[in-house]
Structures are given as structure tokens and as C-alpha cells.
């Protein structure tokens, strides 16, 4: 297990998994870049889109990608983020039509929740919808280890 921490997030990743936690920064145009974290069971590419762009194309059937996107305190209290606590996922949650980028064979799940006065979107993609049950335990292990402050 390897520990990855930053921006108030801490997670224990199983062997073979890797991850990146991007820092919240102000962009040159004045816009705010939110905290976004990626955890993957496969080698992450150099440039990652917030919701896995550039990474989902590299996924094999046994792979999973977990994205946490922090919508910040301004979103706390809205109906969309009413659910409290880090969710876990089940095989029945996965849907081929929910993908940000549709790739044959893949499927995903999206959940919105609030922890520690921070509103998050959880987005999980699996490399194979048919074999998703094989990788869901590892995904839930990662989510279960997640600490948010």
C-alpha cells in the first residue's frame, strides 16, 4: 500500500495503483482551478483531463480509474451534493452511457457527495463493463481508505 496525500485528501493505494492530486490554483485568466484527484490501476499518462481524458484511452479490461473533483464550498448545501460521506460503488451502478468519453466496452458511475464542508463529484470508469466485478473491490478499497479534511 502506498499513501498519497495533498490538498486535504489522503488515500492508501493498493499495489500497482498510482495517483495524482492536483492543487487548487488560480489560472492566468483569473479562473479558479479546482482540486482534482486521479487514482488508477494502470500507468497514468503525462497530461490528464479532469475527468480522465487521455487516460481512459489507455485502459485495459482489468483497469479502473477513480476521479475526485472538488466543487468547493460554494456547492455545499445544494441538492446535488446532499449525500454525506464517501460513497462506495456496486456493479449495478455502472452504466455505459454515463461516460464523459464513450469508449466501447467501458462503463462508469458518477456520484455527488459532501464531506468536511467540501462538495465532490466521484467518477469511476472501468475498462470492461462485463468484467467490472473483478475490479470493483479494489475501487471500493481505495474509496474506503479515503480521508478528507
Amino acid at each position, binding site marked *: 500500500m*502506498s499513501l*498519497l496525500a*495533498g490538498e486535504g485528501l489522503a488515500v492508501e*493505494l493498493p*499495489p500497482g495503483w*498510482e*495517483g495524482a492530486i492536483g492543487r487548487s490554483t488560480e489560472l492566468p485568466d483569473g479562473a479558479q482551478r479546482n482540486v482534482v484527484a486521479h487514482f488508477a490501476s494502470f500507468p497514468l499518462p*503525462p497530461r490528464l483531463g479532469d475527468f480522465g481524458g487521455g487516460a481512459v484511452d489507455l485502459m485495459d479490461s482489468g483497469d479502473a480509474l477513480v476521479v475526485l473533483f472538488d466543487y468547493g464550498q460554494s456547492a455545499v448545501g445544494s441538492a446535488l451534493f446532499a449525500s454525506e460521506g464517501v460513497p462506495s460503488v456496486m456493479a449495478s451502478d455502472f452504466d455505459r452511457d454515463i461516460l464523459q468519453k464513450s469508449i466501447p466496452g467501458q462503463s462508469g458511475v458518477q456520484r455527488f457527495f459532501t464531506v468536511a464542508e467540501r462538495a465532490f463529484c466521484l467518477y469511476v470508469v472501468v475498462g470492461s463493463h462485463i468484467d467490472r466485478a473483478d475490479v470493483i473491490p479494489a475501487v471500493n478499497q481505495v474509496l474506503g481508505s479515503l480521508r478528507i479534511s
Partner: protein
Amino acid sequence: MEALVVIEGIVIALLVILVAGLLRSHAEILRQLAELGGGERRESRLHPPRRLSRQGPLTVLTGNTTDGGSATFALSGSRGHTLLAFLSTTCVACGAFWQGTPPELESIRTLLVTKGEEAESPAELSRLETNAATTVMSTAAWESFAVPATPYFALIDNRDGRLVGEGSAPTWEQVGEMVNRALADERHSLRRSTRERKADTDEELARAGIEPGDPRLFQPPVGGDR
């Protein structure tokens, strides 16, 4: 007179020490140049691993990214290979690597590894970093691989964290050649056990659609009289 002899003796002794020091320094420079390949193209290659850290090879590489984020990369229990390029913003020979693009090699991802913030300039790194490879700051990785000089490269087999080879080269092009050669050496039958070669054969047959028990395995060779 005696005083002059003593002074002369001291001066000669000091000169001997100075010359010995210069010779030793010169030998050290030559040794390091030889280790780095001396810029001679024909000698550039990833050498078999010469050393590992006392704690054993890294299974994960964790560090900071240039935007202040944090990241961890699996060097074991994953797939493909990772090419670690140990670079510095102050190393003149590293300029070609910051300005160039890492070779695109199948199943090999490149990580540009600098020392941590205590020894590097994050602002300069942000200016130099390329979109073609991830830059990560990790002094621990430098210590684990006992990096002798920059630029320096280490090729890791991500399946088991094995250090396939390490060495130096002056350009990305030559690094690519070194990596290809190291991988070819790794696949060469002389470097593989009987078990591994049997597995290679099984894999090759499977790729051709021939599984165990396939009737084609039991047919006599085409055109064979023996």
C-alpha cells in the same frame, strides 16, 4: 644552510602532495567520463544494474508535481516499463532533455525526476517542463537509485519493479536506442530461463490462436521428411 634544506624538503613534499592530488582528481574525472560513455555514440547503452539502494528497489515513486500537487507512480505490480530520467535545472547537459521530447516507445512511460523543492527551483521547472512527460520532484528517488551524475536514466520493469538497466546519454535519441537495446537484451534467449522461454512460446502460439490441445500441434511438420 640546514634551514634551507629543511624548507626545500617541505616544499618538495608539498609539491608531491599537490601532484598526487591532481593525478587523483584527473583519474576521477576520466573514470566518471568513462561511466557516462564519454559522449561516444557507440558506447552508449543501459548497463545492467550496478547497485540498488540498501532498502531495495523502489516499488512506488512518490513526489511533488511542479504545480504543487502530489503524485505517486507504481514501479511494481503494474504493466509496461517506466523510464526514469534524472534531470536537474542547473545541469548544462540536461538542457537537451528539457528542450527535447522523450522518445515514443511502446509500453514505456517516461518520468522526469528532479530532486525535491529543497534542491530545485519549482518556478524554473514549471518553465522547462514538457507536455510529453510527467515531471516529479523526489529526492528519495535520487537517493534510492544512487544517481551518480546528471543526466541519468533508469529503466524499470513495472511488473516486478526490476531495474532492467541504467546509464547516461547526451540526447533523447540515444536514450531511445539504449532503451531498445536493453529491452532486446532482456528478451534475448541467453537472458531467459527455460521456463521463461517456454512461456514465450506459449504466448506466441496463443497470439496465433493455438491453445493447448490444438490438433495443429500434433501434425507432422509441413514438408518435413524426418
